């Protein structure tokens, strides 16, 4: 393994009394793709958001590309330029065209010129296959197209690491593939990626490593085929079985409480993750 691009050391984070991250240690090598899986509320998003300091860690250290993100004196805006982030809800800027979404950050943050930023924007739109949507507004795009624009927007800043927080969870099932294809392309090109996802096929085929989180700790990690097909821990097995076949989950009987209630509701799978395809 080459030098670690991301290094997380004994990371803790609490929201009030809610101790969400309870000592996370994780290293991601340059060019490595790590998928983070785990039940809803296990702290996956919080972990990801601590890497680019959208959340302030309570304790512990995070290094990205050799630079300590958690150093109080660090220029956090400069660090964030090197870390791209893709959100579940896309978060495109609705008042800007697709091209504007890609050029404004380059111009305002990287101080690139008009022509240069437009050229780089066009390049990345072509990479995600959306050149013909350059002048459209986000509201006119499908969810899959919006997410691809969001990826292109992050890439146009020339990041060294890309963070994905459930990038396909808000998409209609038939649009998931186009986004995963772009992510697979990035992985093949050697991008360092940290992906929170429930797409187990993607994890199995693209990830170099799968990390299973539960209750704010990393329960197990390893090669995808090992974690996904032969998990060592009961909690991982339980999670995966419910994820891969949500229809098998059993109704947990509820005592009827008061009149007029909704009655017992079937236990839903942990996250609205899509089943294996």
């Amino acid at each position: 393994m080459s030098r670690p691009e991301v290094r997380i050391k004994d990371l803790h984070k609490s929201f009030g009394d809610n101790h969400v991250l309870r000592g996370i240690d994780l290293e991601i090598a340059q060019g490595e793709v790590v998928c983070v899986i785990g039940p809803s509320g296990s702290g996956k998003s919080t972990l990801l958001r601590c890497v680019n300091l959208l959340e302030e860690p309570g304790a512990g250290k995070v290094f990205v590309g050799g630079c300590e993100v958690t150093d109080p004196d660090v220029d956090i805006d400069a660090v964030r330029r090197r870390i791209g982030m893709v959100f579940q809800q896309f978060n495109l800027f609705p008042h800007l065209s697709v091209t504007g979404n890609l050029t404004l950050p380059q111009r305002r943050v990287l101080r690139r010129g008009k022509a240069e930023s437009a050229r780089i924007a066009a390049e990345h739109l072509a990479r995600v296959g959306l050149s013909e949507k350059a002048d459209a507004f986000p509201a006119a795009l499908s969810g899959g197209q919006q997410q691809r624009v969001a990826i292109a927007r992050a890439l146009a800043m020339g990041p060294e690491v890309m963070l994905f927080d459930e990038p396909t969870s808000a998409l209609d099932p038939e649009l998931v593939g186009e986004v995963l294809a772009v992510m697979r392309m990035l992985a093949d090109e050697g991008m360092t990626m940290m992906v929170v996802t429930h797409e187990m096929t993607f994890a199995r085929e693209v990830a170099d490593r799968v990390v299973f989180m539960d209750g704010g700790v990393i329960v197990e990690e390893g090669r995808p085929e090992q974690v996904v097909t032969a998990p060592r821990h009961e909690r991982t097995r339980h999670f995966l079985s419910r994820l891969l076949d949500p229809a098998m989950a059993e109704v947990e009987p509820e005592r009827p409480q008061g009149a007029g209630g909704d009655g017992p509701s079937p236990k839903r799978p942990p996250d609205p993750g899509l089943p294996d395809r």
Partner: protein
Amino acid sequence: MADTDMPVQPRRTGLTIRQRRRLSRGAQYVVFVAVVALVAVTADWGRLQNQFAQPDIARQLFPDIITVALKNTVLYTLSGFVVGLVLGMVVALMRLSSVGPYRWLASVYIEIFRGLPALLIFIFVGTGVPLAFPSVQYPGGIYGKVAVALGLVSAAYMAETIRAGIQAVPKGQTEAARSLGFSPARTMVSIVLPQAFRIILPPLTNELVLLFKDSSLVLFLGVTLEQRELAKFGNDLASTTANSTPILVAGLCYLLVTIPLSLVVRRMESRARREIR
């Protein structure tokens, strides 16, 4: 309107829901026509025309009512609006600041100036301030004075409107901008405020219309002939001609501005609706 939640079954009257609805709508037309007819018959149209619609007197008002009075009204309003917008923005950002004393000061300002009649603020600006600070001169003479008075009046309302607009922009927008390396100030200027202003365009325009009418309070600051605005101009000429026609014409001049303004805003609103979602 009132009969939307009628039971599906025909009532004792034997009328179906459709018949009842038709009957109710017919009754509303009858009332409307009756009121209009009553007003038309009882009003003394001859005296009204004598007092309010003398073509000769109306003709005398031109061109001054446009080139002086309307022009001044527009100038007073716009300068007050600009001051109010800038001050309102500052107060709104103070309300949202992480510094406690700023928030406190902004709240005090808003509560005081929302609670005072515009007339008192005009008198305070016109006589109180020059009395207290004899060396202070309002820049731009009467225009400066009006801008400050109208600005103080409107800033409190605008601050609350702007704050609501800023808070209506989804948090994901700020997070996306920060993750791309935007500083907090840049995020506010490039991402949050443009979206907030689209949201608050209608209430801000309402404020402009209110200011347009409040500009008539300028007469309490003492103005020269050349500085008169629509209301004072109309009122002055009504007393010199002993006829109310100037009042009617001045009123029409107000509508000449406010009605197109509302139409423009409605157009902008529907366009913004198309672009954002």
